């Protein structure tokens, strides 16, 4: 059985979403484990990231670089930052593997910036790990519904 209590998964996903929406870069980065993988495929959901282009394919060290860049205040594609809010829904646990729970959820995200309002949506897969009293994120894959189309700049945390 899942080492996570009922409701814990949703609470974690909502918190992760809020930290990203509110550009709480340190808070968001602190969610990740050392073996983290943050992946946004391009061209479809199952394209091999080791041989094909991805929108984002970050290991832990690249997540750190990405966050550090955002925190300079001169990451112009997020300075000024986008205003955004996302809804998370249709949460399902798809696997329990030792201390890890793999969950999936749909999201709808509305992004507003001077360019205009952009609607982003997709399904994300999360690998959540119980670490002492806390839950950490070991893996997040975000499959955009329009991953095969031309995308606008997406420099915020998705």
């Amino acid at each position: 059985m899942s080492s996570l209590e009922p409701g814990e998964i949703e609470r974690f996903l909502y918190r992760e979403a809020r930290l990203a929406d509110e550009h709480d870069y340190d808070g968001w980065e602190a969610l990740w484990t050392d073996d983290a993988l943050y992946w946004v495929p391009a061209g479809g959901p199952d394209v091999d990231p080791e041989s094909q282009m991805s929108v984002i394919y970050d290991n832990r060290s690249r997540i750190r670089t990405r966050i550090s860049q955002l925190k300079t205040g001169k990451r112009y594609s997020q300075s000024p930052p986008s205003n955004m809010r996302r809804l998370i829904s249709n949460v399902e646990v798809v696997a329990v593997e030792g201390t890890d729970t793999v969950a999936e959820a749909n999201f709808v995200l509305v992004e507003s910036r001077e360019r205009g309002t952009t609607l982003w949506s997709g399904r994300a897969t999360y690998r959540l790990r119980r670490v002492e009293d806390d839950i950490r994120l070991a893996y997040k894959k975000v499959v955009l519904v329009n991953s095969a189309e031309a995308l606008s700049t997406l420099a915020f945390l998705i």
Partner: protein
Amino acid sequence: MTVQYSELIQPERVHGSLYTDPSIFAEELERIWYRTWVCVGHVSEVARPGDYVRKNVAAQDVIMTRSADGEVGLLLNRCAHRGNLVCEDRRGNSSSFRCPYHGWTYRNTGELLGYPYNQGYGGKNKLELGLGRVPRVDIYQGFVFASFAAEGPTLKEHLGAAAGELDRLARLSPEGEVELTAGWLRHRAKANWKLLVENETDGYHPQFVHGSVFSVTGSPIGALYSDKSTAVTRDLGGGHSENDLRPEFRRAARPMGWFGTSEARVPDYVAKMRALHGEQAEEILIEGAPHVMVFPNLFIAEISVFTIQPTAVDETVQNVTAVQLKGAPEMNRRLLSQCVGSVGPAGMLLADDSEMYERNQRGMAARRPEWLDIRRGVGRERIDENGFRIGAANDETGMRGFWAHYRGLMEEGAAQ
């Protein structure tokens, strides 16, 4: 009223309407995009007979195919019956295309193979119809180019000195071939295509636009474009331009330094290159890959290949993929990883370039001062040993070369 391009394009400034006027955009499609040589893709994307992939030349939906006898061709994606798309999948393998509307079928070289209920046409093989073909297709170092003009300069003539830069990229492969097999990111920007082209070899912006990532990674790239840099901006003629960083790489004299790594990290690759090139290997490994903008839409930034596709006067899609070198798996993993980190909608470099294109486009809605200035470095240009105009690393020499060629094409087009 006809546009007087010689008034809008002057040696040291260009008029803002060139980026915002829809009628100028319409003329550009005819006089540049459907006339000169435009890069569509690479032969490695259709490696096997029957392979096909959908591409674009501006608004033209084009299918790049590989026929049974190995020829690469470009078909227009429009049924000869009533104009439906004949190919909906982005890529695949098939010897024929079947239009879903009324079932006409075509060979992947464009000939009409058949149509259902043929008595309505008096029997089989009665129609002299087929898919449209791009009139001229030619290939250089595997890059596939299209020209919608039946006549005009050859691809070799169009590429001119830029051909040498494609050679320089290909020779980084131990087998002498580039492969573009990593798929394309497609990045949409609300900006006129020329803002992207001009930015590609603008050495003035990196320190500012990319300072955020240079500072957190300790990247030496910014310094290559500083006021102290010995790198040059070169007008290669034909609208092509490059940032030639070799003077800086030669000064550092570190094999693989151009790629931000050392030979110890990629020992198999370096060994293969030395075995192949002997003494010349040092020069190749030190000088690395080009940073070149090939008019009007192919941009190679060392490890990444971009094609630019204008979709409206104020909207452009920039396609990008990682350079992959045939016979160099050790390099290819690193090339892909660095490229993914840098380019596309979330790239640590290109997301910020694209933000600048978009702000640039919005800025030009203001009515004054009307002009964009391109005079930087005019007073310190030189002619190099091969007769090309060069400026300092952060001068606007490349832009001036672009505009001279653009103006020629737009004026000739009007005269036709």
